[in-house]
């Protein structure tokens, strides 16, 4: 009899599921945002299996924590989690990106239970999250709002409008997670449009900041445990240093895999590589 997985083991297992499902769904679509999803896999798994206050049977539960995937192109990694948690039947994912499917490359809250807000146009999510956090204040609810942004997304001016406003209002229950995978579409963020110093920039707007290894599950869970839960407090930033394409050697740190498509033979190779890597604790 095997013992129940530890929290870190559970998150790692679910992160593998995210990666494998990303492979599978990309094959249906004929292309996929592999690498920016792989960089976020541990973060997404840690959020949904250890951190968010949720009731999958009641997706609109007013007291739930909210999650906004502002880097909406990683939705391919979020859908399998929602299916796994029971928000909808997993077989529905087989329609991914096909005509009439609820599941597109970017998430649509009107079509998918468990999506707290539609996303896709970068730079909007932190503002939406701030609105949700202020709504919690107005409605006297103590939920938290988590927003995951990409590092390239930090070039969007609206992010900083939101960061400034969140600091101004003391939206302490707003948590911004930066998937710091260092690559945009055209190259390293520091070449295309420098994102650093990320914490200093947010801190200047009144945020409290942590920086962690986004693939170290213990570190991710530790950062979550360190979050404060008070309103009228600094909003909270977690910069997660990650590797774009994490888990697949040919994709890691290769800008060409922002959007890509694996051929049939490569598919099995990569699938094996992910499973073997996970079994080695990578």
């Amino acid at each position, binding site marked *: 009899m095997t013992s129940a997985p530890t929290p870190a083991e559970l998150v790692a297992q679910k992160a593998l599921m995210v990666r494998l499902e990303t492979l599978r769904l990309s094959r249906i679509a004929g292309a996929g945002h592999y690498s920016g999803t792989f960089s976020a896999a541990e973060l997404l798994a840690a959020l949904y299996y250890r951190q968010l206050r949720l009731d999958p049977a009641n997706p609109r539960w007013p007291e739930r924590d909210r999650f906004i995937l502002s880097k909406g192109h990683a939705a391919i990694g979020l859908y399998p989690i929602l299916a796994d948690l029971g928000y909808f039947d997993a077989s529905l994912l087989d329609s991914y990106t096909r005509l009439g499917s609820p599941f597109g490359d970017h998430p649509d809250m009107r079509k998918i239970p468990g999506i707290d807000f539609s996303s896709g146009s970068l730079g*909007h999510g932190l503002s939406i999250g701030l609105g949700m956090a202020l709504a919690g204040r107005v409605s006297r609810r103590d939920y938290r709002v988590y927003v995951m942004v990409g590092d390239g997304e930090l070039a969007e001016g609206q992010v900083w409008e939101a960061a*400034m*406003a969140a600091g101004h209002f003391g939206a302490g229950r707003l948590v911004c997670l930066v998937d710091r995978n260092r690559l945009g579409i055209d190259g390293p963020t520091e070449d295309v449009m420098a994102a650093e110093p990320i914490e200093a920039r947010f801190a200047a707007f009144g945020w409290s900041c942590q920086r962690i290894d986004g693939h170290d599950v213990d570190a991710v869970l530790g950062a979550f445990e360190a979050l404060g839960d008070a309103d009228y407090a600094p909003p909270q930033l977690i910069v997660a240093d990650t590797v774009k394409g994490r888990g697949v050697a040919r994709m890691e740190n290769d800008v060409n895999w922002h959007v890509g498509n694996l051929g049939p033979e490569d598919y099995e190779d990569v699938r094996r590589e992910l499973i073997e890597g996970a079994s080695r604790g990578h």
Partner: protein
Amino acid sequence: MATERPSREAGLDQSEVFRGDLRAKESESGVTRRSIPAFVAGEELADLADHDGRVVVLTADLASANRLNDFAARHPERFFNMGIAEKNMISVAAGLASTGLVPFVGTFASFAALLGYEQVRTDCAYPGMAVRVLAHHSGMSLGYYGSSHHALEDLAAMRAVADLTVACASDANQLRAMLRASIDLPGALYLRLGRGRDPEVYERVPEDFRFGAATRLRDGRDVTIVTTGSEVHPSLAAAELLATRGLSVGVIDMATIKPLDVEAVRDAQTCGVVVTVEEHSVIGGLGGAVAETLCDLRSSAALLRHGVPDQYVEIGPPAALYAHYRLDPPGITEVVLTFVSSLG
């Protein structure tokens, strides 16, 4: 964004920019009673919020200009001044709305519609959020502030957005009715307002107002003017002038641009001549909507779309601009007469 905002100048205290406004002079002489649409929103929303916990209000450093500070004074916990950051404000409102609140967002129409267009479309309309954008000082009502502060494209832009209601208030009473009706309106609303000095069209709050339904304000056999917002009052005045010239002119207040009241257009075209009048580009606004509908109806009625030509307008005080672009009563009168005579 480093635009200098005339927040004080656009408010109650600074009359310099409006000193040449003929409409204001009309009212001072007692010809019309002054009413101030943009300025009743704060008070009306505060009244609504007394009984409805869903109402929240946001503005972008314009609470004194649009008098949303009347709301802030009574419901400070439900008021958010977001600073000069309109895109963030509209998206924040969408986040608020996602929890079931009904946010009203007030700023100049040029910034609400043009700067915030994607936020209105992607964060409000597309996900079906009950955000109400109060786009005040629309058209060229900011006069000599110039084209940066004019919104003459907003109806065309907003009309193309699916699942967005688009409406124009013609006076304070209609605005109150619209605000009340908006509380339970599904989805997002773009509500276009004047600059807060529009003369009274409706003697009392039209309690039967509903979005999507036009109001026939005047019957006429020869021509029907279909108008909206700030041009309703001058169109009525023009109809009076045209009567003295022997033309019987009806006037329809097409307060909702989208969804358009098709039956009202059908009614308008029965007299054979339709003139649309709007403080907006002749492209894509009310005139465009009516033209499309007449086409759909296979109407043989003659249509003239009267508005601002496809150009950036001259510098000038609002009243001078309305006269220059023939959007004041004498101008509308002249435009209609010329059109009718051209029909032979």
